[in-house]
């Protein structure tokens, strides 16, 4: 009892979403530290090989609400299932993806259970706490660490007196890691009629157009990122050109996206994607904290910037002080001439 729970999202392709597997990987570590089990909840129709998909990540119990009415996601039926299951099983920690599903569902659940929910956590840790006023001690709380206030501060938030301790985490923030390929758990089929009411289906879905993810910079080994310093959409083509020759992906800052130089799917940072490539080339990027939040774990960082004092330079391994319009063509030319 009082286990760690992860709500697993089901994708259009009827698999478990990456963000959920990332949370399962994190959940496994938290469960180990607390000496409890890791449970997941899946609501949806038939998912092939669900056990094979989840056990290697360390799942001990799959709670599975299998019903074709549960896909695609709708708030109320999923809400009814999760809240009832949580009332039965009393988890101490419950994690949700900070996705359009998780951010729709988790707050409603927290409100019903009258517990706390921390949005967009970037780190989750177990730790103790002593209440200043009363001296009361708490053991093994979940430290929910999140950037806040436009990313200018990092806040550690705790929820000492209510359970479950709930948090959402964006895709790409935690690492998806196999725990043990031979790990086995059990599957618990929920009797869906006992959990949902007909009224829960009061909102009608008329139409859906969900695109397959076309752009996937999350897993890229090399990223060339263009910032506002690229100056224009035309100049931004150089970013694509360099990325093409060195077989990398194109990323962008929010300022570049807002200026229409690049599509939003490529935005890196707090309100975009989190990446950790082998090589990150930041071109005309100042390195605002919201941007660094999404790329600072890159193994090697090159910054190309006219301003020697740009904050990005201080986390770069190589800083090229110069104009992108001069430097990028040189890099492209050298690379073309000296490889293959």
């Amino acid at each position: 009892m009082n286990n760690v729970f992860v709500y697993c999202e089901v994708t259009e392709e009827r698999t478990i979403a990456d963000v959920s597997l990332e949370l399962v990987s994190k959940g496994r570590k938290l469960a180990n530290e607390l000496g409890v089990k890791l449970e997941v909840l899946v609501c949806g129709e038939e998912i092939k090989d669900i056990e094979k998909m989840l056990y290697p990540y360390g799942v001990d119990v799959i709670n599975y609400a299998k019903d074709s009415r549960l896909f695609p996601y709708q708030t109320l039926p999923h809400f009814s299932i999760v809240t009832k299951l949580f009332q039965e099983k009393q988890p101490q920690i419950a994690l949700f993806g900070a996705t359009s599903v998780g951010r729709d569902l988790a707050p409603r659940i927290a409100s019903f259970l009258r517990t706390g929910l921390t949005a967009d956590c970037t780190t989750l840790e177990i730790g103790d706490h002593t209440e200043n006023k009363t001296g009361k001690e708490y053991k093994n709380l979940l430290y929910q660490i999140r950037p806040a206030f436009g990313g200018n501060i990092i806040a550690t938030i705790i929820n000492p007196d209510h359970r479950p301790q709930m948090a959402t985490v964006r895709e790409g923030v935690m690492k998806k890691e196999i725990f043990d390929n031979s790990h086995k758990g059990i599957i618990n089929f929920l009797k869906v009629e006992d959990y949902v009411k007909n009224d829960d289906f009061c909102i009608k879905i008329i139409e859906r157009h969900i695109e397959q993810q076309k752009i996937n910079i999350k897993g890229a080994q090399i990223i060339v990122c263009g910032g506002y310093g690229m100056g224009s959409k035309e100049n931004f083509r150089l970013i694509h050109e360099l990325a093409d020759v060195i077989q990398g992906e194109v990323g962008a800052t929010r300022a570049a996206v807002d200026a229409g130089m690049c599509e939003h799917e490529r935005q890196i940072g707090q309100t975009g994607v989190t990446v950790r490539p082998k090589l990150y080339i930041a071109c005309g990027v100042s390195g605002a904290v919201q941007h660094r939040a999404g790329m600072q774990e890159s193994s090697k960082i090159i910054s190309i910037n006219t301003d020697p004092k740009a904050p990005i330079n201080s986390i770069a391994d190589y800083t090229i002080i110069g104009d992108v319009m001069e430097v990028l063509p040189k890099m492209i030319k050298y690379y073309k001439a000296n490889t293959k």
Partner: protein
Amino acid sequence: MSFRIIVLAKQVPDTRNVGKDAMKEDGTVNRAALPAIFNPEDLNALEMALNIKDNVKDATISIITMGPSRAAEIVREAMYRGADNGVVVSDRKVAGSDTLATSYTISQAIKKMGKFDLVIAGRQAIDGDTAQVGPQTAEKLECPQITYAEEVMEVTDKKIRIKRRLERGVEVVESTYPCLITVHGSAKECRSRHAKRLMKYKLAKSNSELQELGQDYSNLWNEKPYLKIEEWSAADIMAEDSRLGLTGSPTKVKKIENVVLTQKESKVITPKDEDMNELMKELISSHILG
């Protein structure tokens, strides 16, 4: 039969201009140190409400904002753009609320207003950035929610059809009333202030504002009731004290840290040909590139 729309709007510190004094020691925001603006997505929410009002007979729009008394500015701004009236929920007891306590307070204010058809909120406020208050308010009102609304496709006094903007696509859904909608920033921008309304509502004030100005409006309010911006306390909305403010907030801020840069050892290079060639050679030979 009138059709009542309630819009939730928050006055937020402009987080795009954060200075040093923005946070107090207890981890709460020092709002006084920052310019206060109309939360951007709440303007999208207001526009959606105005659009519905344009299409449904006898619709009225009421604003609810929770915050310090200066948040009356938000109500006035909304009136200039087309809202009919508004309430500031203000009480020392609600200070330090997390989203659970905030949604409780707001839902109590909505209940005090009486019957409603639609509650429309922004998706997210730019300061707390949680996007939790909308869905939590819907739960407290026990009504369905439609999040990330981008466009009203069809609306009558019986039902509404909404296009939702999701991460990788769109979804069109239909609901009857009552229902709560949260509006995505990709929705239509809010119409600007209307010159006539600006003249009409310029003098609209709340009690606290009048006190501060040392003015008495009792006669004016009798004559022109629309110039009154209501102010409700915790007692007015029949809130239980234990569910308000810091006491009613399960989440506690344990620690706040400023983001500091850890300086890495960085190799500085000029764009001269020799330097560039040297760098590229190093990158390729160490297999960072290629």
